[in-house]
């Protein structure tokens, strides 16, 4: 018998099918198709306010703008204020924006090891934890939010959901099956592996800047 068969059969005999299994109960098929909700904590906050608060708690910085066309200006402002380079790589969804008008040099491609700034959108964002949800895919280069020292993420206000459960619900209804990677990002990369001292920029970005767009 194969390792697989041996392992599965050992599990069956360990659970002594019909005893422990029935005692604990619950149907597998049913759970997998209906994915019942678990108890939730109190969620009676304002979603945008909570999201902003949690982003700041996770050491991200924030900006709010009224329309997508203002993204280059907001990006330029952030980069200049923080003395960061104004050349960047971004996702194809920002191709049509007038970057050069804001004195930003934007390239539409995957980020490489030495790119300094990456601009991404986000599929949605989770208010409960201040988390960006990024799905991998043809239009969504994963390296853009990973390799550069600065990650700027654009979040549409109407895509801020309450919980991770709501994010899953959205993905199930809009996307169907999962893409190769679902990345939940909450603030800049960090570590405390040396004497519990918190340091940003362990392997991923040193800073995450979130721009919330109204429309």
């Amino acid at each position, binding site marked *: 018998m194969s390792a697989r068969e041996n392992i599965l059969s050992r599990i069956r005999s360990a659970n002594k099918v019909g005893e422990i299994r029935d005692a604990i109960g619950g149907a597998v098929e049913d759970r997998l198709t209906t994915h019942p909700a678990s108890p939730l904590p109190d969620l009676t906050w304002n979603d945008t306010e909570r999201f902003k608060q949690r982003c700041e708690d996770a050491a991200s910085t924030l900006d709010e703008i009224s329309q997508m066309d203002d993204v280059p200006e907001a990006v330029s402002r952030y980069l200049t204020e923080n003395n960061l380079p104004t050349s960047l790589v971004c996702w194809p969804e920002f191709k049509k924006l007038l970057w050069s008008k804001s004195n930003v040099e934007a390239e539409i491609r995957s980020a490489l090891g030495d790119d300094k700034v990456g601009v991404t959108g986000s599929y949605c964002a989770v208010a409960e934890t201040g988390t960006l949800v990024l799905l991998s895919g043809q239009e969504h280069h994963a390296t853009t939010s990973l390799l550069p020292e600065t990650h700027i993420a654009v979040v549409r206000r109407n895509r801020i959901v309450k919980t991770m459960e709501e994010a899953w619900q959205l993905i199930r209804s809009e996307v169907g099956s999962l893409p190769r990677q679902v990345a939940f990002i909450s603030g800049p990369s960090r570590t405390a592996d*040396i004497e519990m001292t918190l340091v940003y920029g362990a392997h991923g970005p040193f800073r995450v800047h979130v721009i919330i767009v109204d429309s």
Partner: protein
Amino acid sequence: MEITSQDFKAVSGAKLKDEKLQKALFQAKDGFVVSRAKVIKDLDNFETIRQAASDVRDHCLAHLDEYLEAWESQAKASGTVVHWAESYEELNALVVKIAQDNQVKKIIKSKSMVGEETGLNKYVEGHGIEVKETDLGEYIIQQAGEYPSHIIAPATHKSKEDVSDLFAEKHQRPRLEDAEKLTHEAREILRPHFLDADMGITGANFMIAETGSTVIVTNEGNGRMTTTMPRVHVAISSIEKCIPTLDDFALMMRLLPRSATGQVISNYVSMTTGPKREGDHDGPEEFHVIILDVGRTRVLGSELRDALRCIRCGACMNHCPVYQNVGGHAYGWVYPGPIGSVLTPAYNGIENAIDLPNAATLCNQCGVVCPVKIPLPDLMRKLREKQYEKDLKSKTEKWSIKLWAYLAVRPKLYSIVTRVMARAGKMLGGSSGQIKTMIFAAQEWTKHRDLPTPRGRTFRDIYVNNKKVNKR
């Protein structure tokens, strides 16, 4: 990994005298315990959520074969190659075969405790393939040639000075003294490896049956790099990591980061489902998952099965007064602290880790903080019973227990003996009220501390007397 748990007493004695380690443990304790306490208050119904998580883990374990089959069929549908391994050798050999099939010369690795169990790095290096640990803590101990002392903070036993010396020597660069500079030097050194490694190895915090996905939870971003940059990705996991649905995962994520590092959520939660898709710009061309069963099914069929609910947060060790004093290395295997005191004998044979289940005061700090309500003190007590049944206890301990049992079933005799002992004890202590030295087995106690003397009356006497007083 080779097990050295039989040296627990000797090693922990030395660890207690190690001033540097004591300082490091003190710092870690403060960080973990205080931040967890703060962040669980963020959930108004923490206990309800904790119970729900415990129930989900139980339900999944009771149907583990079905959930694993469901997971496998979803994973295969998304292009994942699924392997099963029944021994450490089998898992290690599978990894090397995948590497050789793909002409892999360099591997980057995101931390995996299963990999520590199987001694993966040593095995892979033995086949001429370079392996780079990328989690900062794991990188530090790999450079130092050591093994992790904590499941989520592997280098917690190292001081900043240790790391300064180590990096200066290994990197051949000027000695740095600042944690930030040291971290960034490691980033600089490791970045090229992320870019040119042929294969990435990660663990998996969870496998989601609903979607056939694996998940890794990290703060540094090395996990996302490892799953994204190389052309081959291998995730190694073990059967009990399976959970039913994405919603169940959301539930676990309210507990895991809070219990582990005192965070609301870890910075990077990366869920992987299959290899690179058509049109994707990044991601591996091949994605393999190896599912291990060493010891797990045995534990599933034993009275220790609750231990399999573990989601590896490390809260039990962070809160354990024994771990806080001796550190993780004293435990002599992969998992330290209370969960280690259960898993080490359960996976390696109870005769190979006699001291571990006894190295606990059964204070239940671990049971109280465990996010999936594993009754750790009960499990350690069960292991102690097993040791007694298997005749693994020392003669002194066995005779003491027999003597006590003899007295305990003879209430009158018990009452007389305790009365005599209470009075004798009081006399022995004299005016100081402390006994400085005792004889036989009891000398172990007074070797390191004095024993406060009994007050001269037994509990039973006081109880009977109080009852009389209350009646009046």
